[in-house]
């Protein structure tokens, strides 16, 4: 890949070459101790342009954005803003120059109001006192523009993730920025929220702003973006107009190899007897946890050797159902049966001894020990298998680690490396290995490929399919409908804590699923009118 000459830069589409560029980054290189993060990378963004920055995890997108936002200094290369060379020593410099970056992890103060967060450090008023009325008015003027219909004095803590993101955007607008950089803005959003964000981004574009947009969902690129730049392994691969390319071409550029048909048609395999059955699972909101999502009479079955997809918008209760089954959260009533026997779990440990595993939604916060060795991450749940008495038998541990390293083709330098150094895809495989080591009967996987690059996504999907083949009942929860459609044999949809329907994968399309997820009344007949 790196051998590709960077000639495409000179073949810029006429329209943006003619219009003055807003941003021109040329020959950017950056090394970290022991790693070459970027090597001679270019990025050009025209006025009123939505620019997709693409690449697998580890391709160098984040580093490039951090250089642009002043968080890192480049070792070599130039940045020109409106034709003027600039250097940013700090993020503050970049913001003053009109570049605001919105990171995946928000930088909001949860207990402060929307208005305070938007104008943090720049509150209107005299030197000493804040003018609360002007603060609220100024905030409302901005939030109205982007359709955030909330009292400016609402604490950010009470907002949904999508609304919090709008607060970040409002903050960017309040700084009268010309270029907004969004690092994976859609990865935590449901489909409707993504659609809303897309509308807002188009509004901003119409107002003359440019936006750099990082995403792993390629369909968004084609729906939303004007131009794209692809990085691979720290190198510039190419850029161009989105209208002139297609998904396959972009994936080839990103991975430097042919991934094959991403979501090919696969016959539904035969499955075994019912492994997991839940009936009437109900969890009410209570005073201690007013924001918790309710579960109302959730019933579903998963068979041995089958992949059950659990689809729904964010907040539909899918994760809550999984956690309740696993014993991670309590529920008010309902029955769980495993292989026909009623069970009751007092906690995750209990669920594990009954053969249930849960790969949680948030890999870094809920699954991984980022600073601990990969071996610990892989074997922490399976200590019984690798111990003699109180002691860990390192030979048995090595054997176990080796087995899954090969089976899942986990790419690591050594099992003693910290897990945090792995790429997202390999991290997820480590978590999968942790559960596979327990030889579970039932494995619930919540958002198996969130934030993982395209190549690893396919690998993880194939792993899930392999697991089902070996007889495990796999339950996959995903906010990405293409993913649900790629791996599931049968799909159950949820909405607002209730099951709204069930459909075989071969009968399902994104449109039908979307209708089932958004409409309580059986949705099949309304599929056509969805969206």
């Amino acid at each position, binding site marked *: 890949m790196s051998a590709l000459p960077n000639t495409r830069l000179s073949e810029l589409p006429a329209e943006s070459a003619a219009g003055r560029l807003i941003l021109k980054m040329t020959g950017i290189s950056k090394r970290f101790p022991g*790693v070459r*993060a970027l090597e001679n990378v270019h990025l050009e963004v025209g006025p009123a342009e939505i620019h997709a920055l693409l690449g697998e995890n580890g391709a160098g997108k984040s*580093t490039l954005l951090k250089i642009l936002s002043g968080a890192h200094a480049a070792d070599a290369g130039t940045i020109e803003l409106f034709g003027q060379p600039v250097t940013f020593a700090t993020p503050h410099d970049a913001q003053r120059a009109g570049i605001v970056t919105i990171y995946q992890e928000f930088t909001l103060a949860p207990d402060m109001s929307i208005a305070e967060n938007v104008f943090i450090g720049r509150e209107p008023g005299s030197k000493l006192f804040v003018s609360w009325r002007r603060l609220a008015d100024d905030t409302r003027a901005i939030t109205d523009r982007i359709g955030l219909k909330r009292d400016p004095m609402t604490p950010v803590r009470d907002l949904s993730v999508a609304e919090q993101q709008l607060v970040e955007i409002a903050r960017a607008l309040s700084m009268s920025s010309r270029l907004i950089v969004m690092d994976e803005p859609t990865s935590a959003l449901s489909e409707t929220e993504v659609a809303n964000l897309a509308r807002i981004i188009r509004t901003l574009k119409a107002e003359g702003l440019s936006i750099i947009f990082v995403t792993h969902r390629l369909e968004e690129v084609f729906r939303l973006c004007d131009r794209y730049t692809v990085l691979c392994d720290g190198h510039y691969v190419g850029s161009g107009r989105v209208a002139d390319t297609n998904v396959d071409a972009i994936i080839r550029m990103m991975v430097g190899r042919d991934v094959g048909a991403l979501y090919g048609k696969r016959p539904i395999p035969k499955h075994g007897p019912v492994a997991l059955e839940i009936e009437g699972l109900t969890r009410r909101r209570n005073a201690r946890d007013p924001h918790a999502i309710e579960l109302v009479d959730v019933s579903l079955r998963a068979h041995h050797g089958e992949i059950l997809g659990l689809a729904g918008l964010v907040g539909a209760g899918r994760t809550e159902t999984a956690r309740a089954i696993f014993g991670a959260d309590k529920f008010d009533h309902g029955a769980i049966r495993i292989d026909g026997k009623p069970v009751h779990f007092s906690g*995750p440990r209990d669920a594990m001894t009954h053969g249930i595993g849960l790969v*949680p939604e948030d890999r870094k916060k809920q699954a991984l020990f980022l600073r601990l060795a990969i071996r610990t991450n892989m074997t922490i*749940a399976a200590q019984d298998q690798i111990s003699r008495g109180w002691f860990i038998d390192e030979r048995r541990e090595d054997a176990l680690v080796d087995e899954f390293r090969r089976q899942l083709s986990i790419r690591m330098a050594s099992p003693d490396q910290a897990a945090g150094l792995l790429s997202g895809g390999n991290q997820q495989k480590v978590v999968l290995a942790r559960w596979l080591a327990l030889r579970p009967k039932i494995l619930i996987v919540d958002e198996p490929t969130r934030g993982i690059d395209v190549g690893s996504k396919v690998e993880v999907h194939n792993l899930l399919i392999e697991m089902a083949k070996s007889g495990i009942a796999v339950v996959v929860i995903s906010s990405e409908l293409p993913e649900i459609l790629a791996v599931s044999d049968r799909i159950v949809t949820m909405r607002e804590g209730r099951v709204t329907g069930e459909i075989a994968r071969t009968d399902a399309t994104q449109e039908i699923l979307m209708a089932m997820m958004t409409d309580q009344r059986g949705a099949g007949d309304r599929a056509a009118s969805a969206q």
Partner: protein
Amino acid sequence: MTEARIAEPGEGKGVDVFGFVARFAPTLFLIALMALFAVIEPRFLSSINLFNVMRQVSITGLLAVGMTFVILTAGIDLSVGSLVAFAGLVAAAVAKGGMENRFTVGEAGVGYGWELAAIAAIAVGLICGYLQGLAITRLKVPPFVVTLGGMSAFRGAALLFAAGGPISGFEPSFTWWGQGKIGPVPIPVVIFLSAAALAHITLRYTRYGRQVYAVGGNPEAARLSGLNVNRIIASVYVIMGFFAGLGSFVLAARLNSAEAVAGTGYELTVIASVVIGGTSLFGGSGTIFGTVVGTILIGVLLNGLVLMNVSSYIQQIIIGVIIVLAVAFDTFAKSRRRKL
């Protein structure tokens, strides 16, 4: 492939000098400090002086070994100094033959013997540690607050128990544990280093050790991996209590006395030893080896300063500055090594 190459920084052929220095910084600093003192003051390197240093640090060293477990879970125990005083007084009273006889002087043969005294001290430590662990895990009060309360409560208990006076004058079989030697090696040093070795093995090679790191590294992930997080967190305070009890016994034996103000300010020295030894206050990373080095480092520093006739007030200032610098260095090293 591409992602593997990016995912394995620092593992390449080039030697990561900075990483090496960062990892062994406390050890290198200790060696440098010893070299410096040896040059300035030749008496420093005499074996008598070195054993003296080791004996001086052995009590706080014992406590630091326990504190390493606590800090590995991102906890803290501020009550150790007070607990040492309280447990020491209980041990002393047992050695003297009970509450009524605790202030008698020099009457050998009246007491219950060092064995019961040691068991009493350790039992007090275990119980107090367990109570604190329960408060932290069941009542969900942060460790800082619980042990701040313990710091006050145990000191009060010690004062109440002592009723104003020290308890002193034990049998030789008791004081041997603080003043005796095996060959040239003082007993407290033997106890400290054995405890450190045992703790090292526990943390490095046992299931429990792994679990302590896991709970400290990410409690939510540990819970979802089936670990009993509450039990593990409570257990480290019990371990801390054990070492506080053992330390109080050795201290009383060394001083041939137990008093209510014993161990005042120990929490600072002990936490400093652990942190200077490279254990992260955020939990999940650190070693007993580091703690031993940190403990000795503080001892060497104080000893050298004494030999150079630096006032004890200035010593306190220097220790304070070094603690802050150690944590600053740790943070700096981490930010340097964080990738992308």
